[in-house]
């Protein structure tokens, strides 16, 4: 059964399709959540179930393309929201890319699908920087935690993260990432 079959089944309200979705992506969703929550199996099980329930609730809008990405994003949001409730602020280092006025990626090149573009941009990073980048920004690990996991010093990790942000921005600009309606106002 393909993702397309599962999505079609879900849209028809078939719980069997939901079971198949969980069989296929349950491990992935719980892994993402577990990584962000640093274990905590009980919360992880709870949030994983919430992700699939949310998928069921929104099955009408579901698309077969990038189903895994959709589930990953949903899992991340659930887990980050849980952390935000506990910590107020995620411990993310300079969690932003700034596009200046002169930098109009949507004007520069033809628009492309965001997911595809972001994936390509992240995969364009140097491998160790990419892992560091993902540990920190995707899974919410602190810089120290991620640095420790990769055997890097804290300062080396910060330097790599900074370099990673610049590279990502450059790739996004080059690829024509549309970073919101506001950016296209001057079209």
């Amino acid at each position, binding site marked *: 059964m393909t993702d397309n079959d599962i999505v079609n089944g879900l849209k028809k309200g078939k719980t069997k399709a939901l079971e198949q979705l969980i069989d296929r992506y349950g491990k992935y969703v*719980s892994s993402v959540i577990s990584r962000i929550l640093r274990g905590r199996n009980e919360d992880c099980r709870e949030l994983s179930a919430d992700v699939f329930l949310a998928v069921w609730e929104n099955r009408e809008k579901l698309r077969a393309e990038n189903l895994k990405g959709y589930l990953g994003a949903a899992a*991340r949001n659930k887990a980050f929201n849980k952390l935000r409730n506990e910590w107020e602020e995620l411990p993310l280092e300079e969690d932003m890319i700034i596009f200046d006025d002169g930098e109009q990626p949507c004007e520069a090149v033809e628009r492309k699908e965001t997911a595809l573009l972001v994936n390509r941009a992240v995969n364009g990073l140097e491998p160790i920087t990419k892992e560091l980048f993902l540990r920190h920004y995707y899974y919410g690990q602190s810089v120290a935690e991620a640095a420790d996991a990769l055997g890097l010093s804290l300062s080396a990790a910060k330097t790599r993260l900074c370099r990673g942000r610049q590279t990502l921005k450059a790739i996004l600009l080059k690829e024509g990432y549309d970073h919101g309606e*506001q950016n296209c106002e001057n079209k």
Partner: protein
Amino acid sequence: MESKTVKISELLDDYTDNEFFIDEESEVNIDKIKEKVIAKVSGKKTKIKPVAKIMIAAAAAAALTGMVSAAAVHGTMETYSVIAEEKAVQHKTDASADDLTEKLVDEDGNVIEVQEADGDKTQYEETLEIDGYDAGIVTDDSADVTEKLTDEDGNVIEAQKADSEADSSDKTDTFRFENE
């Protein structure tokens, strides 16, 4: 110079990790997640949406109101009916009472009224002065309504008055006029 910012953590919502931490480390039992999700979804399938609930409640309320109104109208109508019936009975009773009123008119056209309004069995005696006669009126419950008028010698000069009224058939009025 205007600048725009994009959050990297939000930007990565569009990223799919196919490389790191996949299918590893999680000790979460997928079957338990599945069980929980399916149980909730199965429960939800039969659940009625809030809007539908409100509509059903409104319909029920409307039906109840309608029933109450109908009952009230029915009750009112019944009350009217009872009142009307009572009035009809009262009217009939009044009419009957009127029917039961017997009037005795003397020779000059004066009314000597003898009334038995509600059908009660009454016996009374009164004395009337009619042209030298002392009229002793006796009412009893005997079968026939008889009027006897006797002259000076005691002879009966007027025989009887049989009441043809059906509803007064149970009454017997005997009028005895005795010579003074």
